[in-house]
């Protein structure tokens, strides 16, 4: 068990392309941290540098109190689970899991004890004699996790481990991974591009983009208090609506967010101080689809009515997505399936302004 820390870590490829641009990240013992971001954001490179599979161009990586920049992967005491499982195809499940222990010259009975224990945790006991080709995707991924568990390493590294599985199995394996972490409590760094995986698994989420960390925080934090437009748009599905607007004077000496002449939303009083200095400026209003829903007569404070012209209706069963255009900008609302919405008709909606975000147009910083 160990803490991991990245200090000003840079990865520069030949030709001067920087994949990781000096990131700082402190991961404490037993923590489950998820690096999330779009393709090419540098999350996998960061993980591979921690694993020792990529050289570090600048900065330092610490594992368990030691700088490991020049330590080869086998001496870092880490275990990694790959997207394509990377099981040794010619070895049985038992041998796959025992390989690392055999190389480290563990006694036979200890190897057997550890493999059996891992197989019990992952429920793959009956598969130990099989070859990887005789396993399903989910079983293979379990074996790959088993191979990591038996080593009892300081850190687990997961590189998009569920991306090759079908949707149903992915949800199931997600739970398994969480359960395993609750059992073995090893420090875990998990890379994914799937923000739902990030939200469900992480103690802390690290959102990366273009080689820098945009935000580090608990899943609750990054969802409810995104620091940048990128984080706001990346976390949450469907993505947050971004609507160009202007901060203007509202009624009763308050402030208002003017989207169009018809759509003027009063700023909640508790946010007056925050938004006051932006009066008159072009800004971007961020509102998640789940905070734009069917109209309720009995509203709550800071709920505001908006009427929009329905463009497309997508019933999903437990909810219905309704799409609109506001001044050419696409907007999505998440309404109760019983709501009657027809394309081409006006639909009355509620905007929950307690949950609104306002960001600077150019920098994308949430204010």
């Amino acid at each position, binding site marked *: 068990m160990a803490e991991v820390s990245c200090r000003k870590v840079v990865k520069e490829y030949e030709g001067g392309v920087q994949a990781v641009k000096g990131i700082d990240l402190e991961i404490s013992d037993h923590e489950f941290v998820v690096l999330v971001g779009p393709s090419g954001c540098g999350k996998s490179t960061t993980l591979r540098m921690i694993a020792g599979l990529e050289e570090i161009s600048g900065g330092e990586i610490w594992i368990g109190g030691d700088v490991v920049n020049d330590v080869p*992967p086998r001496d870092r005491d*880490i275990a990694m689970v790959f997207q394509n499982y*990377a099981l040794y195809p010619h070895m049985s499940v038992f041998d796959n899991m025992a390989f690392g222990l055999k*190389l480290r010259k563990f006694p036979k009975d200890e190897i057997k004890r550890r493999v059996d224990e891992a197989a019990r945790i992952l429920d793959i006991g009956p598969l130990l004699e099989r070859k990887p080709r005789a396993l399903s995707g989910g079983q293979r991924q379990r074996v790959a996790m088993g191979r990591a568990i038996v080593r009892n390493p300081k850190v687990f590294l997961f590189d998009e481990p569920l991306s090759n599985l079908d949707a149903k199995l992915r949800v199931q394996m997600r739970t398994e991974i969480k359960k395993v972490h609750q059992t073995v409590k090893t420090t875990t760094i998990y890379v994914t591009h799937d923000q739902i995986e990030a939200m469900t698994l992480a103690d802390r989420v690290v959102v990366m983009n273009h080689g820098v960390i945009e935000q580090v925080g608990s899943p609750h934090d990054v969802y409810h208090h995104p620091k940048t437009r990128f984080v706001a748009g990346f976390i949450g599905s469907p993505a947050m609506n971004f609507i160009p607007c202007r901060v203007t004077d509202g009624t009763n000496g308050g402030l208002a967010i003017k989207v169009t002449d018809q759509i003027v939303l009063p700023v909640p009083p508790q946010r007056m101080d925050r938004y006051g200095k932006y009066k008159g400026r072009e800004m971007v209003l961020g509102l998640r689809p789940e905070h734009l829903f069917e109209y309720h007569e009995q509203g709550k404070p800071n709920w505001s009515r908006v009427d929009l012209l329905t463009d497309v209706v997508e019933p999903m069963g437990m909810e219905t997505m309704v799409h609109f255009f506001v001044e050419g900008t696409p907007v999505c609302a998440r309404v109760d399936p019983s709501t009657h919405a027809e394309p081409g008709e006006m639909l009355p909606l509620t905007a929950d302004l307690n949950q609104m975000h306002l960001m600077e147009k150019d920098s994308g910083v949430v204010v």
Partner: protein
Amino acid sequence: MSATTMEAAKRAAAHSHKSSLHRQRMWALWGSYIALGVFVVIFLVPPFYTLMTSLKSSAEISAQSGNPWIVRSPTLENFWYLITYPNFQTFYFNSVVVTLLTVVISMVISVMAAFSLARMGFWGSQTLSTSVFLTYLIPPSLLFIPLFQIVGAIGMINNVWCLILLYPTLAVPFCTWIMIGYFSSIPKELDEAALIDGAGYVQILVKIFIPVAMPGIIAATIFAFTVSWGAFLYPLAYLYTSNQMVLTVGIISDLIRGDVFQWGKIMAACLLASLPPIVIYAFLMDYYVAGLTAGATKG
């Protein structure tokens, strides 16, 4: 037209479409059988003739009457003569030793070369991979004169061991090329997983790559075997006494005396010489094809 008749017409059209597909498939099948039949006949006639002649006595071969394709009184005297003939035994022994050593040396070199070229990613590895293949393109007939100088300089003319030195130069480039292709098709994560599991490069090669790439290794081995077993030019150029000779050149130099062709013995010797390749191909053919195709699509 009523709805029923229209449906019937559509069904009839679909049926005729189906039967035309069936007919096309039949034609394609017949075409392939005929083409393959011709191919098989062309390729099997020489071995058949070899077999027939080897079973004939010298008198029967030289007799002008009768059908040359049929044996009237089959005899194993040619085979028996060769098996008990000390020179032939020496040729066979030399061929086996040279081939075994060539295969072992070539495979050790090419597996290690291919692993480092395909996986270690050092400076210039790409260029080296290409040049390895380019060396394969130089025909041995261009090389044997300069090589004669070298072999002479190290005093190995008319020494069967010079073949063990020379054959790998023919086998290694192609074997390395096959193995580069095969190793490149192994996912990178496999060696990364092994690195993290604690393996060094030698362990990765021995414990992961060689077992996983076994079909490719078998294909390369068969190639090295074929090159070494069937090579004609080098032994012809560098060896001249019977005690150093190998099968390919030995058969013609020993069994053709002046203008006397001992056809029965030559044919029997050819059959005996083809035995090891036939046995090896028969057992390992599936691997050979799998290995060649994997190498062909990658790299």
